[in-house]
């Protein structure tokens, strides 16, 4: 009955109570939403590359190798030779291997030379393959397949010509070798979206008339002649490797790292991604802190509403006292009331969160390539909800203590 009366009292003050609950609900939604986006971002990040057991490149730092081979950030200081690549490819432990050659660019986007196997082997978001949105994969020497962001930013469509520049600055464009866009890939939320993909041979073809980064004066080989040339690359930037089995991965990694002919580095993408995330992860702590503050603000708001309701409720408390309620019953009722408000707020926030996720999930995915999973609550999130209710009860003790004192002093004789 006390619970019913406490609820009745809340209903009687429906408007202010509703506002307080709404504030708590929004703050809880924000906090859990940030949590969802954070785990989604982390998962998306970790899913940038999957299905690849090892990434191999010239010896450097593991994060650096990951950055330039997968995220196309920074440059390789050294290449690995084609001989090393072939040696590794011939190893028994290697199931498949995809070479990658970087170093050229188109406008602000990187150009990557690779083989057709890349489209088969490169997986993201736990095993999803690249798919072509428009046109077809490249199958000619001068074909280029571009990522969704490239197409969108530069307004390209299939069959448009495209000029590839050597190096990253655009002052020395390979204008003599125009490429054709053969296909545009579906958006993935990975760096592939921002990449122009051509064949490994195409990278060589671009450089036929070039030596040491400059065009040889007066020399301009026609595309038809280039087609007849041997375009076997001398070196590549990195290679994605799939091992024949889980157990072979570490042996293969060790043998590549100890490769005598050339200093090489093989990394496990998952481990390197973790290392990289630790660097990026500082921002997530800041996000959590901010959304935690919002919850604290909402709870303090609730405390303020309870405080301001005390005066108008003196009569109510006096009636309880006259009927024999001890001051601590008054105290308990106020704390209970706050806990009920916090609980309703937390649950409402949860409902808002999931409704919001259902609406926003496809939008976020297409706009940012960020897949926020709609999962049942994690244990951690359940604890957050319980924490909100407990914190609500704790902050309400401040006005409850005041009510306790007031009801002791007033007794049952309040005349308002």
């Amino acid at each position, binding site marked *: 009955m006390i619970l019913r009366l406490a609820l009745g009292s809340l209903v009687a003050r429906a408007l202010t109570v509703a506002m307080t609950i709404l504030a708590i609900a929004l703050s809880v939604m924000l906090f859990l939403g940030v949590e969802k986006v954070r785990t989604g971002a982390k998962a998306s990040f970790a899913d940038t590359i999957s299905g690849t057991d090892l990434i191999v490149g010239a010896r450097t730092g593991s994060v650096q190798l990951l950055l330039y081979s997968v995220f196309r950030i920074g440059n390789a200081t050294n290449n690995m030779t084609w001989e090393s690549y072939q040696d590794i490819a011939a190893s028994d432990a290697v199931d498949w291997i995809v070479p990658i050659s970087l170093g050229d660019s188109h406008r602000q986007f990187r150009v990557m030379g690779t083989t057709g196997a890349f489209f088969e082997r490169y997986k993201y978001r736990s095993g999803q393959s690249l798919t072509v949105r428009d046109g077809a994969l490249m199958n000619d020497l001068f074909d280029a397949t571009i990522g969704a962001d490239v197409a969108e930013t530069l307004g390209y469509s299939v069959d448009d010509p495209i000029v590839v520049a050597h190096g990253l600055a655009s002052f020395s464009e390979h204008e003599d070798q125009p490429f054709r866009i053969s296909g545009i890939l579906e958006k993935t939320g990975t760096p592939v979206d921002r990449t122009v993909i051509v064949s490994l041979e195409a990278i060589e073809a671009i450089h036929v008339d070039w030596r040491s980064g400059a065009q040889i004066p007066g020399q301009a080989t026609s595309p038809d002649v280039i087609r007849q040339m041997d375009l076997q690359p001398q070196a590549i930037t990195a290679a994605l490797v799939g091992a024949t089995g889980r157990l072979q991965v570490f042996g293969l990694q060790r043998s590549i790292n100890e490769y005598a002919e050339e200093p090489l580095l093989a990394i496990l993408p998952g481990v390197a991604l973790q290392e990289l995330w630790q660097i990026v992860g500082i921002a997530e702590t800041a996000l959590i802190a901010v959304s935690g503050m919002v919850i604290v603000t909402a709870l303090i708001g609730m405390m303020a509403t309870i405080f301001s309701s005390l005066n108008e409720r003196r009569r109510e408390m006096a*009636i309880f006292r006259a009927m024999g309620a001890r001051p601590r019953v008054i105290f308990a009722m106020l704390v209970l009331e706050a806990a009920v408000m916090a609980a309703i707020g937390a649950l409402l926030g949860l409902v808002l969160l999931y409704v919001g996720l259902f609406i926003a999930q496809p939008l976020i995915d297409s706009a940012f390539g960020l897949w926020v999973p709609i999962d049942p609550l994690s244990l951690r999130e359940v604890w957050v909800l319980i924490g909100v209710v407990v914190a609500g009860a704790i902050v309400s003790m401040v006005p409850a203590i005041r009510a306790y004192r007031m009801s002791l002093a007033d007794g049952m004789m309040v005349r308002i």
Partner: protein
Amino acid sequence: MTNPAPVLELNDVRYRRPGRASFGLDVPKLSLTQGETVLLLGESGSGKSTLLSLICGTIVAQSGAVCVAGTDISSMSSGTRDRFRAEQIGLIFQQFNLLPFASVRDNILLPLRFAPDRAKRVASPLEDVERLCRDLGLPSDVIGARAGLLSVGQQQRVAAARALIGTPPLIVADEPTSSLDAATQTAFLDVLFTQSRAHATTVLMVSHDARLAEQFDRVIQMSDIVKTTRGAA
């Protein structure tokens, strides 16, 4: 019908309000027997509220004995006194007696929540609520209604029902009729006394209105039993 053992007895009670604004109240002797209806007449400021607070045990006298149903409440702990009040005393105020957001039923049953012994005397609470409402002339459809929607006269009857439920030995009423018009006043006291006499309940009512006197067994002037002191103690 009357039992010589006093239901309420105050002996040499001396109370001084804490703090510098000193207000003091002395009651040498006040005694009410079972089943008596007593009107305590006094002007405002004559110490009525203080006296009622002393009887109900929300304040405690510095010396003397306040005995309710044969037990001195001055020596009890505050928690025990709160429980004791719920068990032994039915209270009716001047106005705003009820929790406006709660149903009439919940309002009437409220004291039983804090008084287990009194609740035990009520075999079937819901039937008792209906009976009391019927006896006090309240239509049965108000029982489930929110108390705040009732007229003032009906609210006072609900307060009377709340004071009567579980038949406490003493009912204390603080000007319960002052918010009612003359005709309703008489009717209210009639139904209240019918009920209190049926259960031999003692009624102590405080008022400034001497016209009510003829309906009571006994009339006491505040000034005859209470000595108040003001100013520097």
